[in-house]
């Protein structure tokens, strides 16, 4: 069964450093998403991406965040200057159709730890 893959599984970074989280969505999917989950809390939407541009973003997704699809398979989330409160699990998801009326399929996440 096709799946979303994310690397690395765990990233440890010093506060203020840039970090790039990588995702390979399911190959025939066209819509891509990033969510985060702070330990013990609910999964929160960050951003959705379609046709090489952001389609929606939440208040969490401020100027420190950016997303990119650098080639035909990868989808990345960059945090320019990390803060302690960025520590969380970051999940990538994809769907073959847009809108939130389709199942989004999630990767197993990257645990980001900011020191």
């Amino acid at each position, binding site marked *: 069964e096709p799946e979303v893959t*994310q690397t690395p599984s765990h990233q440890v970074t010093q506060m203020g450093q840039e970090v790039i989280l990588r995702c390979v969505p399911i190959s025939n999917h066209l819509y891509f998403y990033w969510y985060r989950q702070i330990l013990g809390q609910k999964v*929160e*939407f960050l951003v*959705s991406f*379609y046709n090489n541009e952001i389609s*929606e973003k*939440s208040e969490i997704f401020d100027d420190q965040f950016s997303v990119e699809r650098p080639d035909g398979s990868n989808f990345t989330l960059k945090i320019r200057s990390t803060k302690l409160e960025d520590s969380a699990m970051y999940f990538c998801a994809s769907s073959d159709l*847009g809108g*939130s009326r389709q199942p989004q399929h999630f990767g197993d996440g990257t645990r980001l730890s900011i020191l």
Partner: protein
Amino acid sequence: GESVGLHLPTLSVQEGDNSIINCAYSNSASDYFIWYKQESGKGPQFIIDIRSNMDKRQGQRVTVLLNKTVKHLSLQIAATQPGDSAVYFCAEGTGANNLFFGTGTRLTVIP
């Protein structure tokens, strides 16, 4: 704003019994609902979804019930197995490109 919440943070059931996990939502504009299962160290795994024009949908050993009158949905798992132990999230969609997740219920299956 939207709000998706769960009635019970934990649920323990005996193996073989049926499980019922509940979820309340507050946004009457939500018209799509998904249940996800999250095992330790893994991402949310799609279980079953339902659109607001339906009251009930069945999958393999799972049933989702939607009561729009009281903004409530539930996930029923038949003959619960140890492998069903996980955190279960409901999520709602309104047609925008994002899902709103509830806080989760931890299901523990007692052998």
